[in-house]
């Protein structure tokens, strides 16, 4: 492997890892605070990608479509929590698995009814089109750098909100003792609604950011969901810091393995996860 290829793959890996973090952060936040295992989280990623594609073809502006899609996703999150998820708080993980599998079916079907089953692509917004020259004859796409920076920015905001604001304090309190928070007069119901909606929006925003880099196809939600599981399990379920480290590790491992051992590249992250769990059965940043 030449130095040049190594650096390109390194940036690719970090960029992929940051995107994975953005998706996984919503999953791990919802699990950590609410104890809900949301298998339909990948569907929200799909929803974001399809919405931004739809609005981009209608309005022609990526920025406008991105904002519109994010708002719709947030509303959708509130709606899903109020109508369905709220009934699951006193149930076990199995009922959650079942209900969210049902949701995957519904979203996949809606996708095929509303948008059809053809693969789509979203054009890279004009200002970010093009590449940064890397060496004499290669360049790195600007949009990928931009996407990575957006992911870092959102991660920063998320960190700030969780560790520095009143909402974040309530979220952390809800994580460690639900009854106590309730007894202190906090409306835990609306707190949960907010957290779930944020989780859905994080997944949808990842879909929006990923849309110009990847093709928008049926089933895109499921494949990303399983990868996210690997990320949050490696990091430790419920830990946002863990999701960050896990996402970067998975991003780097899968990017480098697809260059070094292409025939094994799909298997590698699962082997990696099993190895991590053998050493640390609760993940790297277990509480």
């Amino acid at each position, binding site marked *: 492997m030449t130095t040049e290829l190594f650096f390109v793959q390194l940036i690719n890996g970090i960029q992929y890892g940051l995107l994975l973090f953005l998706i996984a952060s919503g999953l791990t936040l919802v*699990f950590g605070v609410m104890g809900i*295992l949301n*298998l339909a989280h990948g569907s929200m990623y799909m929803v974001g990608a399809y919405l931004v594609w739809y609005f981009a073809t209608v309005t022609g502006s990526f920025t406008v479509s991105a904002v519109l899609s994010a708002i719709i996703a947030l509303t959708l999150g509130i709606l899903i929590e109020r109508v*369905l998820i709220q*009934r699951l708080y006193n149930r076990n*993980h*199995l*009922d959650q*698995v*079942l*209900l969210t*599998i*049902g*949701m*995957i*079916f*519904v*979203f*996949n*079907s*809606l996708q*095929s*009814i509303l948008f059809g089953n053809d693969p789509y692509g979203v054009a890279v917004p004009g200002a970010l089109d093009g590449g940064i020259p890397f060496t004499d004859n290669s360049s790195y796409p600007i949009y990928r750098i931009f996407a990575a920076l957006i992911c870092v920015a959102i991660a920063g905001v998320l960190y700030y909100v969780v560790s520095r604001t009143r909402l974040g304090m309530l979220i952390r309190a809800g994580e460690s003792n639900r009854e106590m928070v309730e007894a202190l007069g906090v409306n835990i119901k609306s707190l949960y609604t907010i957290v779930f909606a944020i989780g859905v929006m994080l997944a949808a925003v990842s879909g929006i950011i990923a849309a110009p880099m990847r093709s928008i196809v049926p089933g895109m939600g*499921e494949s990303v969901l*399983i990868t996210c*599981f*690997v990320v949050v*399990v490696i990091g430790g*379920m419920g830990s946002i810091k863990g999701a960050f480290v896990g996402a970067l590790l998975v991003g780097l491992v899968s990017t480098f393995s697809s260059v070094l051992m292409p*025939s*094994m590249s*799909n*298997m590698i992250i*699962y*082997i990696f*996860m*099993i190895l991590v*769990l*053998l050493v640390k*059965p*609760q*993940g790297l940043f277990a509480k």
Partner: protein
Amino acid sequence: MIFEKRTERILVPMFFMVALFVPLFLESNSFFVGKVTTILILSIFVMSLDFLVGRVGLITLGHALFYGLGGYLFVILSPEYEAVNFWVYTFYICGISALIALVTGAVVLRTTGIYFIMITLAISQMMFYYFFDSLDFGGNDGVFIFMKPETSIFGLSFLNLDDPQHFYYLALFSLFNTLVFFKVVLRSRFGRIVEATKQNPDRTEALGYNIFAFRLTCYVIGSTLGAYAGFLFALQYGFVNPSFLAWEMSGTALVMSILGGLGTIYGAILGTFTYEGLQYFFEHLTEEWLLFMGSAIILMVILLRKGIAGYLEKLLEK
């Protein structure tokens, strides 16, 4: 009596009586016989999962690994253009699957709760991609099974696997044995201890039982029967491909067992038939059957908290 509840004493004999006689009035290669055979085989798979999830408390999202192994092991072990003996190969496949379950079980059972769900998922995904990417086993397309095994025992042959009706009875017979086997195991001393490990692991351990060994034994039993179901399914359709061990397969089986009534064992049959029946109905009603299927699942989680078996028990007990 191995059937403890009144509901199962009514439902189980009724089901097997109907299942025993209905095909006699149908043409052997009718669509109905083939479809019901598939559902019977799936019921075995779902039942083995129900045992693990509902009775042992091992929530696995990677059970399809063994379903796929049942098919792939047959392809790997048997010569391509020669009919092998069904019983001998059943023994081989179950034996090797049990060994694989013993090894993987020893690894996955180190974790508990949500991590157990995830690591079982990871192992089955790993094998999914192994078969998906491998050129030896046809990759995504899978492998065809050209020769169905012959079924003679000591030179006597009364079962012809090429005849759909015979295959139907093989599946029904296997399902019945699986049901009785699980019921006997659960009624035994061993089964009582397993029950205890689920209800209160700490106390059971304090009583001097090795929880790990009991769970591992159950994991091997459940996985082996899952592999047997996969083997039958591969034989019925004459092929095996990676979708056998996709996570959707594990997920659907989990939906079926919860739908039927988790931990009831006989509920696996109810769940599988209801799920497949609903899917068949919606598929013929509309192209977008998935929408109705998904909505039906969501409604059932909210309304039927203990599955169909739980609902029936509420009606029939007392």
